[in-house]
């Protein structure tokens, strides 16, 4: 029996390390892409039963209100699936812009860097 074509559009690479997922985001997040990203991440979380997911946004140059909304929504959904979402690598100008706009990204755990994110991911 053949598996149903379940290949969603892969927008980012997802690396599984022990019981968490590491996702380097190295693409420009336009509105369509950010929707596909959410879809892909939720599928990966369900498939791997990961307990944490790390989103590395070092390469992301703009995080606007819609990207913020979708990342927060994804984290809320992941949490309901028993998975913590950790964001790391926010660039200083992006942090400045988000702070000035009043966007707090409260649904996500924020890590200083990848090393810190790995520590948070392994926390009980």
């Amino acid at each position: 029996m053949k598996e149903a074509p379940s290949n969603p559009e892969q927008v980012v690479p997802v690396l599984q390390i022990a019981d968490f997922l590491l996702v380097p985001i190295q693409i420009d997040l336009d509105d369509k892409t950010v929707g596909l990203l959410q879809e892909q991440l939720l599928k990966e979380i369900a498939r791997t039963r990961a307990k944490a997911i790390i989103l590395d946004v070092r390469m992301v140059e703009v995080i606007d209100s819609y990207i913020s909304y979708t990342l927060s929504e994804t984290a809320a959904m992941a949490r309901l699936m028993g998975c913590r979402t950790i964001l790391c690598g926010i660039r200083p100008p992006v942090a400045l812009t988000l702070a000035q706009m009043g966007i707090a990204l409260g649904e996500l755990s924020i890590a200083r860097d990848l090393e810190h994110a790995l520590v948070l991911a392994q926390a009980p």
Partner: protein
Amino acid sequence: MDLEKLEAILASQSHEFDVVVRIAKEEDIAVARQMAKKLAQEMGFSLADTTKVATAVSELARNIYRYAQQGRIMLRKKEEGKSGPSMEIIAADQGPGIPDVELVLTKGYTTYERSLGIGLSGVKRLMDSFAIYSAPGRGTVVVAEKRRRRF
């Protein structure tokens, strides 16, 4: 008079600007953001201010796409003025218009389901000046400006 200002901006010609991006599809939001970033870099804006400009344009372009379906993002270098060079950002559409401009500038207010309601108030905070002209049935124009800072 706000209505006159609105009509005048809606009637402005593309050649009066350095960059004009027509917003009609979702992908145009990212295009506008890239073009704004490029112009800010050309003008010698700091990385922080370039990011603020690109983010603000992203918000304005998305508002056009969501609420008016189509419109224009127009960017212009302004060299004159005692405060040095600045970038003028205009978002113009002939959509439904905004009945209560004060209300849409309230943080957290949105009529769209998947939104933080922070776009327009965020743009206002990111820019040095910000004005909005709107009339129901006529359209909406946002005029914002960001000065180049020297460090």
